[in-house]
């Protein structure tokens, strides 16, 4: 299983978590997995929307104790 990079964006507001994700994705390789932790509800719906639009693979999106975990695989 690919190693997963955790991006802890808890406490940051939209579009902070998305920008943190993109900054990290840029330096990743195709196939790498990333997981964003966010306490911002807007980002929890906006990040999957972005993943869909750009064409990466959404692996998981779930809430645990007020923290959203959004996991994806870089596809390009």
């Amino acid at each position, binding site marked *: 299983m690919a190693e997963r990079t955790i991006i802890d964006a808890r406490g*940051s507001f939209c579009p902070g978590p*998305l*920008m943190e994700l*993109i900054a990290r994705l*840029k330096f990743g390789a195709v196939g790498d997995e990333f997981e964003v932790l966010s306490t911002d509800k807007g980002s929890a719906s906006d990040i999957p929307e*972005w993943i869909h*639009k*750009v*064409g990466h693979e959404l692996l998981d999106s779930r809430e645990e104790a007020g923290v959203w975990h959004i996991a994806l695989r870089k596809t390009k």
Partner: protein
Amino acid sequence: MANSSKISIVVVSGTLERLQMAAMMASVGAVSGNEVTVFLSMNALGHFRRGASAPAAEGAFGKLLVEKKAPGFKQLFQSAAELGDAKIHPCSMAVDVLGVQAADLEPWLGGPMGLTKFLSDAHGGQVWSF
């Protein structure tokens, strides 16, 4: 990229809320594969000098942005430029009126742009103003 389009954003306001919203649109638009051009003029431009003081809030929401530590508008514009290749230009008229040099402005801004060029680039795309 599918669904990409051209987004042109004119920013004239110097209030925190409007700068923030313009920066949010520029950054999210740019990292979603759109071709984003930002044109900074009037009261907005002074806030893009290096070391400029923070803009004043227009209302209660602006104060909340500060309290809750929302990502700074300059940081978002910079992300738009660096991560999404957004082009962010000062209006050449505003540069002249304000009397600023390129070296006085944030390094991630492009060179001064005239209105004719901006309008011609904006043709056929979405235009937003703040």
